[in-house]
């Protein structure tokens, strides 16, 4: 038993390096996608202190809108632009209808409001586009399909899906773009000011409402990119909602307010989950992927209650 837990998995890793690399790659891709979802959460949490539970459903909604428009005869690129427009309208609507009347409420009320928004979007998405899973329009969007195999002499081969590589590249581009946007532009500076202190930001003439709409729109764009990538790997369906829950341990690992934290957290969870499932999962009957991420996060939290990159929590009376 002890041998199975502590020695055998490592022996396997050494003996089958191709399989191990494949697992690492899977973990990397899963981690990138978790990180993308978590990124949407972080954007909104930083700027408004709202824990946006609807991010997961926004991913599904963006993907569904894109596919649904394409099914109704809109060319792929036009559909993409239209979907971006829809996310913009959604961002404005959420800011106007949900966020603005709820300013200054306790965070649990805001959390509930976003869960209400989740229900609404689930109903609306199914109402308009139907509940059955849809195929993502990968080729029409010019995304690569197919795969490449790398050989390691005589030790086996590792297969990389092109779409996964594309996902990684897009994630990197997106994070860089967001970094530049946050640090170099006028709006980005305003966003950081709002994140630091709402009242101080207001007093220097930054419009909170405008900033919130922009942040929700940015989160919508991240959701769209995530939706395309997840959709290309599996189907576009409301089952993706479960994936969004995985972004929560990623978030608490990285800390709610840190963009690099979201990426690092995503990768830790992605690697940990895949390696744990494939090397240790068999010992307890498999399927541990569904909860391992939370347990990893829980263990990290016990040592650092504010997450890896979170701001230190100081409590005073």
């Amino acid at each position: 038993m002890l041998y199975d837990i502590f020695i055998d998995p490592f022996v396997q890793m050494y003996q089958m390096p191709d399989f191990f690399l494949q697992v690492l790659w899977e973990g990397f891709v899963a981690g990138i996608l978790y990180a993308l979802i978590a990124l949407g959460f972080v954007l909104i949490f930083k700027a408004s202190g709202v824990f946006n539970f609807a991010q997961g459903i926004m991913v599904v909604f963006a993907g569904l809108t894109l596919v649904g428009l394409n099914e109704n005869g809109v060319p792929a690129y036009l559909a993409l632009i239209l979907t971006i427009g829809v996310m913009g309208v959604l961002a404005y609507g959420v800011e106007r209808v949900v966020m603005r009347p709820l300013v200054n409420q306790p965070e649990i009320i805001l959390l509930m409001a976003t869960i209400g928004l989740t229900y609404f979007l689930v109903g609306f998405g199914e109402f308009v586009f139907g509940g059955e899973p849809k195929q993502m329009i990968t080729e029409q969007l010019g995304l690569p399909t197919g795969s490449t195999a790398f050989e390691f002499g005589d030790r086996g081969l590792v297969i990389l899906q092109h779409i996964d590589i594309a996902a990684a590249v897009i994630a990197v581009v997106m994070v860089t773009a967001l970094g530049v946007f946050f640090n170099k532009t006028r709006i980005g500076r305003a966003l950081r000011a709002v994140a630091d202190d709402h009242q101080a930001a207001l007093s220097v003439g930054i419009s909170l409402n405008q900033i919130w709409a922009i942040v929700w729109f940015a989160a919508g764009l991240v959701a769209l990119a995530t939706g395309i990538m997840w959709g290309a790997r599996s189907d576009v369906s409301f089952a993706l909602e479960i994936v969004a829950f995985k972004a929560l341990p990623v978030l608490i690992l990285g800390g709610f307010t840190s963009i690099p934290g979201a990426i690092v957290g995503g990768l830790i969870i992605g690697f940990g989950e895949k390696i744990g499932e494939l090397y240790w999962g068999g010992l307890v009957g498999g399927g541990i992927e569904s909860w391992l991420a939370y347990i990893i996060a829980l263990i990290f939290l016990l040592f650092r209650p504010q997450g890896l990159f979170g701001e230190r929590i100081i409590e005073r009376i």
Partner: protein
Amino acid sequence: MFYREAGQFKTSYKADQALFPILQDRVGLAVILITAFAVIPALANDFFLTSIMIPFLVFSLAAIGLNILTGFCGQLSLGTGAFMGVGAYAAYKLTSIFPDANVIVMVLLSGVFSAAIGAVFGLPSLRIKGLYLAVTTLAAQFFLEWCFIRIPWLYNYNASGAIEVPRREVFGIIATGAEATPLARYFIVLGITVLIAFLMANVLRGRIGRSWMMIRDMDIAAELMGIRPLQTKLMAFAVSSYICGVAGAMMVFFWLNAAEPSSYSIRLSFQVLFMVILGGLGSLGGAFMGAAFIWILPVILKFVPGLLGFDLAAETVEHATFMIVGALIIFFLIVEPHGFARLWQIAKQKLRVWPFPY
């Protein structure tokens, strides 16, 4: 005018500290209890009992359980569904190990198991707070759900992986199983819910309940004033999980007759959390109102198009229900973030001063 405390003098400390010191409250409560115990069973048909009243009471109890943890002790939990599941599976195992025992006792005992598991998952709450704690309770949710699927001992190794409630009799009346009448189930569920609600109303105004509220309002300050945070938080977790466990056991034994692991999924956790928040955090009456709103509204919405003469597909109605419920949740949060309990207080104040509002 209608709701006047003036002139009701209390002449002893005991009378002043009574659970319901105001006459109108006692009358109102008596009316509600008579309605629940006599009028509804006399008038309602089976459909009303099985698909509205029994689920409503079960959810009310679960909402009371979560309200103790989240509303009174301030620990946000998303693991309610799993704790209810623990109660259900424990009750199932208990009835199959002790087939002759009274099933009501078994249901009440099953809560003990979920209390123990709740206390274990409550341990991190000492260090982890707020939203971070919510995520650790998600760990409980997904881990326990996995256990329900992967540990065949829990469902007696049957092929379907679901638990099915066997037929059991209590005092000569069939209480569980497919043959049990809705009326018998209704009375059992009502009895347990009322009993636990009264018990909790008493606990909450005593030393334990007050220490929970101190922890909720500011845990460091409470600690300085001599409240032990570990014991208090763990007790809140245990009591809350006990009630949720009993609710979960009642859900399968007296309502659904059979349950799968997916019955106790994260969706259930959210549903109960909605009831608590819409009803009003930190209010027992609010738990009932929230449960009524979240459970009964979709049932009614299902029949509205038929009554209005529209012929819509069942799917469309379901999607529209989702939309309407979501929109109403946001609406109510905007109108009254403190829930129906606060609306009821406002209404009471209006009744108090009517017809001269100034």
